[in-house]
């Protein structure tokens, strides 16, 4: 039902339940806001109304009202641009700036910062009206994935919402009071000593430079320029549909070809496609699934591509360590293959090869340092760069990204199928695994490849697949809070699923913490997903077990699917890492 309101003398009807901020948006009136965040399709809302930037005048109210959390009512008269409201907004921003470092030029968030943008938009120039003591806190550089710089925190509490409500990890929380209030990890510990999964959703939503990824750009440059190193790179499916945003292209633009050319220009000796490894993963994972189904192995089997999800499991559900697939994540598989099969083929010592993975993810940075993901003390992957870091490198070299010619991934580890692409979206791994497992289990050819019921952003999705006359129940969770629900059912023995896909980030890897910042616009994440599905549709090969390069790899080197060699190189194990008893 519509509610009739008046904003700045414009009369309009808006759906009941709308906030003033949403209503103003309908009236094409922009009210600047900072702490507020709503990812519509992902059921994520942060409306703590703490920054007091979106203040507006509402007739009949004694005080100014925050547009983000004031719900419209019939006959409401709102003014957004009175002297009083504008001054208040400006003062809120100036006060935030008065307790904020002024190192914007060298900040990790320079030009990506919401506070910087709002200050610019409100015309705040020159000296601030209010000045005084600034908060002093050390940076937390303990983790390999996330850097905390509390001096830059504006206490919007978005990170808390992601960490506690969406991901149910409970790592970040405001502590202390008044001017000393600061968002800190559990017990004030360095992040690396907590049960942080490094999913990085806090980084993805932080409006300032208070939470950023650990930057590995310089290490990668050093490696590239080291004549004794042979530096190769691989890129995850979700990167190619997001990288363009960093160069002003429309969200959802597929820039695979330009990205490959850019990587080559940066000096990487070989540019491989993690999609190849995604196909490899599916072949292994589907084999494992078929094996478990037929041999009475542990069910439900849980996918294991997502490193934050694996951390979550090891910390919070150590009693379920037998459930996840033992398959390494795709880029780790590719790293292992590069440093064995490819190294041998090219006659290069594995120690000499540096594998750089460009990922939409910050948890992969931590994952790459796991000792179990190595062969003979050589890590499978040496460095992980985020999509954003890759853009920084491209910018640094002065390339005109959008003018680049399309390049092709290097062979022999370059071929991929359409299904590998959709790994990047929630439900993609499941769809890929089913396209292969179905054919193997039934011996039939799967005609209808697009399992639309598995797609979308709903937190938990489930389906039932008829296989050989039996209904095999599967489920997909995106967001760790949703995963928790499924895991608790497993713990209670109430789960009748055979296979569960989990991606830690809402939306899957396309919404990963290493992606260009979405600034609270979930449409961007949706467009990236659409681009992946579009691409899959256009591919000739859309089933992993039809990937010729993969088959050749088994034929030449790995031997059997899910065989001994494959186990040695492509599988891992999990350990109980619980740190806090509840």
């Amino acid at each position: 039902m519509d509610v009739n309101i008046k904003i700045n003398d414009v009369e309009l009807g808006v759906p009941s339940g709308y906030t003033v901020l949403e209503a103003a948006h309908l009236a094409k009136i922009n009210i600047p806001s900072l702490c507020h965040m709503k990812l519509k399709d992902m059921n994520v809302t942060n409306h703590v109304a703490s920054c007091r930037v979106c203040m507006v005048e509402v007739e009949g109210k004694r005080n100014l009202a925050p547009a983000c959390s004031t719900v419209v009512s019939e006959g409401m008269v709102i003014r957004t641009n009175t002297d009083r409201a504008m001054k208040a907004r400006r003062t809120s921003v100036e006060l935030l700036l008065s307790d904020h470092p002024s190192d914007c030029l060298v900040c990790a968030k320079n030009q990506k910062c919401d506070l910087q943008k709002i200050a610019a938009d409100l015309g705040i120039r020159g000296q601030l009206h209010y000045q005084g003591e600034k908060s002093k806190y050390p940076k937390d550089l303990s983790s390999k994935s996330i850097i905390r710089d509390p001096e830059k925190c504006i206490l919007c509490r978005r990170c808390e919402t992601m960490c506690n409500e969406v991901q149910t990890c409970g790592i970040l929380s405001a502590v202390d009071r008044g001017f000393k209030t600061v968002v800190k990890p559990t017990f004030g510990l360095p992040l690396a000593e907590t049960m942080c999964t490094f999913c990085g959703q806090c980084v993805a939503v932080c409006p300032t430079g208070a939470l950023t990824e650990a930057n590995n750009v310089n290490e990668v440059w050093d490696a590239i320029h080291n004549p004794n190193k042979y530096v190769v790179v691989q890129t995850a499916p979700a990167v190619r549909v997001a990288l363009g945003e960093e160069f002003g292209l429309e969200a959802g633009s597929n820039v695979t070809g330009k990205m490959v050319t850019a990587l080559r220009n940066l000096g990487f000796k070989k540019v491989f496609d993690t999609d190849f490894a995604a196909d490899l993963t599916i072949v292994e994972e589907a084999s494992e699934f078929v094996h478990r189904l037929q041999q009475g192995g542990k069910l439900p089997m849980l996918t294991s591509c997502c490193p934050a999800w694996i951390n979550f499991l090891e910390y919070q559900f150590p009693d379920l360590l037998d459930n996840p697939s033992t398959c390494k994540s795709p880029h780790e598989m590719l790293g292992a293959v590069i440093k064995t099969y490819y190294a041998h083929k090219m006659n290069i010592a594995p120690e000499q090869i540096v594998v750089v993975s460009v990922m939409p993810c910050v948890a992969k940075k931590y994952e790459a340092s796991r000792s179990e993901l190595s062969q003979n003390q050589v890590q499978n992957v040496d460095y992980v760069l985020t999509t954003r870091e890759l853009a920084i490198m491209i910018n640094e070299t002065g390339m005109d990204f959008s003018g680049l010619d399309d390049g092709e991934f290097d062979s022999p580890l370059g071929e991929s199928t359409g299904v590998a692409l959709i790994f990047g979206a929630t439900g993609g791994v499941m769809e890929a695994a089913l396209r292969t497992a179905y054919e193997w289990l039934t011996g039939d050819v799967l005609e209808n490849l697009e399992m639309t019921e598995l797609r979308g952003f709903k937190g938990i999705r489930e389906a039932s697949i008829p296989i050989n006359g039996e209904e095999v129940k599967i489920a997909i969770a995106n967001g760790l809070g949703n995963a928790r629900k499924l895991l608790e059912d497993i713990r209670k023995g109430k789960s009748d699923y055979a296979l569960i896909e989990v991606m830690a980030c809402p939306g899957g890897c396309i919404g990963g913490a290493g992606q260009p910042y979405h600034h609270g616009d979930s449409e961007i994440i949706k467009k990236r997903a659409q681009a992946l599905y579009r691409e899959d549709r256009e591919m000739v090969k859309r089933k992993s077990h039809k990937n010729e390069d993969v088959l050749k790899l088994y034929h030449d080197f790995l031997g059997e699917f899910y065989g001994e060699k494959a186990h040695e190189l492509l599988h891992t194990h999990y350990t109980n890492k619980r740190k806090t008893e509840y």
Partner: protein
Amino acid sequence: MDRINSVAQLKAIQAKPDSNQIIIRVGMGTCGIAAGAKEALDVMVEEAKRLKINNITFVKTGCIGMCFAEPTVEVAIPGQKAVLYGNVDQDKAREIINRHLTKGELLDDILEIKNQYRIALRNCGVIDPENINDYIARDGYQALGKVIQELTPEQVIETVKLSGLRGRGGGGFPTGIKWQSTHNSPSDIKYIICNADEGDPGAFMDRSVLEGDPHSVLEAMAIAGYAIGAHTGYIYIRAEYPLAIARLEVALSQARECGLLGNNILGSSFSFDISLRYGAGAFVCGEETSLINSIQGSRGEPTNKPPYPAEKGLWGKPTSVNNVETFANIPPIFLRGPEWFASIGTEKSKGTKVFALAGSVNRVGLIEVVMGTTLRQIIYDIGGGTKDNKKFKAVQTGGPSGGCITEAHLDMPIDYEHLIKIGTMMGSGGMIVMNDDDCMVNFAKFYLEFMCEESCGKCTPCRIGNKRLLEILTKVTDGQGTEKDLETLKELGHYIKDTALCGLGQTAPNPVLSTLEYFEDEYLAHVRDKKCPSHVCVNLLEYHIVEDKCIGCTACARACPSQCITGEVKGTHMIDQSKCLKCGTCFATCKFKAIVRR
């Protein structure tokens, strides 16, 4: 104790006073105990035993509110007017038995409660809070009985509305309307919360009620529960109130045992029980949404309203949060009728208000007066005038969120409307009297410091705005301020009031804005002349020796801890300003008024 299964039974067990018994009431609130009430009681018990006086009943009561005269002892001999003694130390306690009781001689220091009207405090200092029979004897739980037996929830709400009772915790929101909205919110589960998180510096009326008359709060909560449709109540109380907690626990178990709480209260179908939740002493947890968050185990910080707790409160269910003093007014409203209550007070502020009178006044303590009483009556008739007859300057009301009342408003009736009109508020009822020795700038700074400490840090205006306000104020008291700073104080203060998320933040600038309005000259003296007229702000203070008054006795030089005073014996002395610590030792030492403050 036996279960009471009906209102008739409740009335039947009301004890009749024994005509032969002498009753000695000893005020044993936290304050009385701290002042030595227990020792005084022990002496009296011992003396009575020694003299074989057997017809004395000693009653350990809560506090009667006379802080200036603790410990207090009331002697009630049948057939005689009760006599209230103050400052009863062990010697005096002995004399009470030896002289007053045995010889009929009256002692010194007889106190009288004058010009007060006690509704909320009606039982404080009168009954033994740990004995439910004392409460029942004074019509305790009869209001609840009447409500359950005779009234519908709607009628209960209507009665409270008719009485005109408004929230005593600060805002003055009409209690009946709060109950009505909670009653109207559809839900099968609802809650009543008693806000006993008294946090204003200097305010202790809630503690006093809980220590002196806990059952009145329990009874009122059950009435509220009946009215809104709640079966569970919580008392959110500061953990720093151990005695109040202990007495509440005793009261709760007695009430349950008697069937006045729990299932089927007084044999009816109404069930209601109460449990305690302890607060960790955060001022902001007196704000209802913070309080609710704290009960839920979350960080004690407010959430934006609406939704109000009446719609979505504790665990997302409709909740009515009322203050201790508000509850204490409820039973009398039902016993004596809403018309009676509404006949007391002013047009829009009905009943009485308890104030904690403190500062530069002779009789500090808790007082309960009719709404509309003037400040002059409070300070001079009840408070006994200013200390040492110093010149009255102002009264701070409403605690850290309030403002100042100056001499110009001494004859203004004190009620919600008038206080708001002059830029202060009722708050929980703290009243601090100030004289010429008090610097208003420094005073505003004191409260702002408190607010900055107690801010939860959630919203920008409170977290950073109040901090900046304090920094500017500190500049002023340090002598570094400019007239422009005073403008900034006003501008920033009004912005904070207009934008902060909760009541704490919105009212934090009040002391600054109010003193700026009424004592601008003091601010100007600080920034223009770099002088603190009250000689309080140390950085603006200088001690000087007046040449023709100094006789060269050397006392000041010998007392000076920084040895900055020089001079020959019998010669005029000098203070080296660069070394002076401004401790004031010389000023206090000089017997010839030769040292002056400038």
